[in-house]
């Protein structure tokens, strides 16, 4: 059961990663002002990286077995 949640979490994170990649791709490829594009990408990647990293750490520290035994 814990494995199912881990797989679900990985799937959700993959979707977020793909969306982030699409955002970076579109800004890099289609932006007409390269300086503004660079600034946008730096801001986006900094905060997204921070949120991703903290999210993974929080998920790793979740008491999944306890929570699932409480629910089930």
């Amino acid at each position, binding site marked *: 059961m814990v494995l199912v949640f881990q797989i679900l979490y990985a799937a959700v994170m993959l979707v977020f990663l793909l969306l982030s990649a699409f955002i970076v791709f579109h800004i890099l490829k*289609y*932006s007409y002002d390269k300086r503004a594009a660079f600034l946008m990408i730096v801001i986006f990647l900094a905060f*997204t990286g921070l*949120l991703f990293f*903290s999210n993974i750490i929080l998920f790793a520290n979740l*008491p999944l077995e*306890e929570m699932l035994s409480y629910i089930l």
Partner: protein
Amino acid sequence: MDAFKDFKFQGMSPDEKIIKVLHRNWFDIASQYFLVLLAVGVFFLGIYIYPLIFPQFEGTEYNVLFLFIQNTFLLAVWIYCFLIWVDYYLDIWVITSEKIINIEQKGLFLRRVSSAKYEKIQDVTVEVKGFLQTIINFGDVRVQTAGELENIAFRRISNPYEVKNLIAKIQKEKEAKGLDALGDMIRENAGN
């Protein structure tokens, strides 16, 4: 024009100069962000209320669960905000010395680029509809082109009347240049 000298758009000729680059009016993106901020506000209100509703979870390992939910929500909101921004930023209308270019980003996987030279423009219409559009001064400018060419629509741009006047001015200048060139050619041929 010098403000745009570093900007590059596909399909521009070397002599072509960018006169104006337009995006949708700030109100358009602000109204989308308002809803997002409302959701974030409700969420943060919940963070303050939850210890009152669930005091038994305070100081327990379930704090990690709530932090995780908060973090995931913030991540989703952050990415959604940037998706809104990319959609706004990549919708561009460019007025150059030779043509007008319409670049529309529809979602992540559809991008449409169309252009119309001033010689092909038949009619330019401005539509400013409603109280807010009138007060803030933004609206649509529709450019009707000749033949089978697609019409171009500047959607929800600021100062639409100025844009219309600018297009009309450039069109007149090009017509005058064309007539001058024709006159010179006739004179040259007559001289020969």
